[in-house]
């Protein structure tokens, strides 16, 4: 866990306290799409183990005819939204700069950037993801617009009647605060660059030992919606309501 100085300096614990317990998103398999980086070519895609159960998807993007312009996009899939904030703190701790200014501002994410005059980089915690975009070549490349585009795609939702399978909860009825195992069964074969988003209203969502759980914050119905986003294909979704006593 990052030291107290880092936590205090970057308001880590304040942001953690602001994370609500009555709504959350969880992403699996998210990575930049070529549409996010028009004119760039993905030249590397690596899956790397990160701390704990985190998983890092690293992509490197090169600009044709300009070998000095490169972008590195690291997406670390964490166990939960608080875990992503901890991963962000770890990233800040692993930065040699004494201080990093805030980046994009918003209520649902926490972001810091390299200051002017330093090779551009942006560090962003959103939902269960830590997204780091770095100007990676000899030439400085602005990273802000790409971060905005990624954030836009993460936050976008689309209405769809197409389904991709089935969501089930175990137990099917829950008590407030109880951990409920969430399973999803796909009736399609996801293509490369597809990703899943699961949104929970009335609780939180997290992954532990490779299994997904939701935890209802109050009583009443807890709504779980899952979307499968695939490049060039229609977005599909499924929903589940878990009664909570």
């Amino acid at each position, binding site marked *: 866990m990052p030291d107290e100085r880092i936590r205090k300096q970057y308001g880590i614990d304040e942001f953690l306290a602001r994370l609500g317990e009555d709504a959350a998103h969880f992403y699996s398999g998210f990575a930049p799409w070529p549409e996010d980086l028009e004119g760039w070519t993905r*030249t*590397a895609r*690596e899956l*790397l*183990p*990160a*701390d704990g159960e985190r998983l*890092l998807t*690293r992509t490197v993007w*090169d600009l044709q005819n300009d*070998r*000095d312009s*490169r972008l*590195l996009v690291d997406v670390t899939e964490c166990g939960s939204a608080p875990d992503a904030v901890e991963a962000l703190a*770890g*990233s800040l*701790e*692993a*930065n*040699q*700069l*004494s*201080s990093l200014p805030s980046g994009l501002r918003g209520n649902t994410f926490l972001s810091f950037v*390299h200051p002017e005059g*330093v*090779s551009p*980089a942006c*560090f962003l915690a959103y939902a269960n993801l830590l997204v*780091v975009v*770095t*100007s*990676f*070549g*000899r030439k400085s490349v602005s990273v802000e617009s790409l971060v905005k585009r990624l954030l836009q795609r993460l936050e976008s939702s689309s209405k769809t009647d197409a389904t991709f399978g089935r969501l089930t909860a175990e137990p099917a009825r829950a008590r407030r605060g109880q951990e409920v195992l969430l399973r999803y069964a796909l009736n399609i074969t996801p293509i490369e660059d597809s990703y899943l988003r699961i949104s929970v209203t009335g609780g939180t969502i997290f992954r532990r030992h490779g299994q997904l759980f939701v935890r209802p914050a109050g009583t009443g119905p807890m709504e779980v919606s899952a979307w499968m986003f695939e490049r060039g294909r229609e977005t599909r979704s499924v929903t589940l309501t878990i009664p909570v006593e």
Partner: protein
Amino acid sequence: MQVEEVHFNHDTSSITSDAITIRKNQAGNPIPAPEWKRGLPPQPAAYAAAPLGAHVTIKARFSAGQPDSVIKIRAVDAWVPPATPTGCLGWLIWFISSLIRALFGNVLGDTDVQVVSFDGAGLSGLITFTLVNHKLKSSGVGIRTTDWKWQYHHHKKWHTFDTTQHKIYLVLDVPNGPWNQNAGNNTQLPWTDALDKACLWALGAQTKDEAAEKITIAVNTQPNQSYTPSTIFGFGTYYLSSYINQLNGGAPFQLNCTDCADAVTTFSNLLGCDLWEGRLFNMITRKFLTLNGNPSVEADWVSWSWGYHEICWLHQIGQFELIYDGCLQVDMDNNYADLVHIAKHPVKMRFGLNDPNDYRYRLIQSGNGNLENIPRRRAVA
């Protein structure tokens, strides 16, 4: 008659008489003996020089022998020395040929002679041969190729019946952490992808000091890299595979001090050195030559305000211990106000305090530079 198998790491529990256990990289499995097997692509082997005892052995198996026969077999170096030189060109060719052989040629020498029995099907058992005239203890770090002619003895003459070729890595001592020799599908076994870099960067190094120095300089001067303050190749785990991919890719990439310390420690320790990584905090630096900088370009002499800096320590972290830093070169010129700079790679420099020969004095202009006494050797992935 033909060679069926040659085993170099024939006893995975020992490193005193055979090769050490290695793997290609994080993916896949450890490379098992036989490293050479007829009909399959040959696999490399690696030796750690220091622990090797008086007898280094290999094992081999043969087929297509005369059924129920007994015969003497040996392997000898297939290299044929160039003809006695005549004229300038002749001497030049001879010199270059000898140099290439010294750097990349056979270190295994020959094998002794063994009496081999063949069964009714013309197959032998697994026969142990002792290496003779090998140079494993004296050649220093390298990647060498051995071409062996396998011969049998008949009518008072040796007759060649087969040839084999072997890629051999030679390191100075048993690799230190993060590397280990634990059994099983262990990702921290020495990687040949890393040995390819380390053995080339420290080619010919005879001592651990020399190896660590060569690795430090190589990490600092890789042509396509430049500095960024954020850690790119992992803070909890060292993404060595990703770093090697970038090195091999040939395109420009960025890294920071932690990445450089990881590289120096991981590659040096692969050769048997004993380095650790450790951080110091809060400093405004003097001007230093940036990563992969050109000493004659003033813009490459930079100063930073750092929350931390990470370097490599020989044996242990301490105020008066010795350090290696692959991320920068310090300025040994005493006048920091002028444009005169004397670049020096920090290799085996005392961390120290305020002596002009101390690393701390040369790096830190102001700030406490307090040490964090947490030695690290990050696991590789």
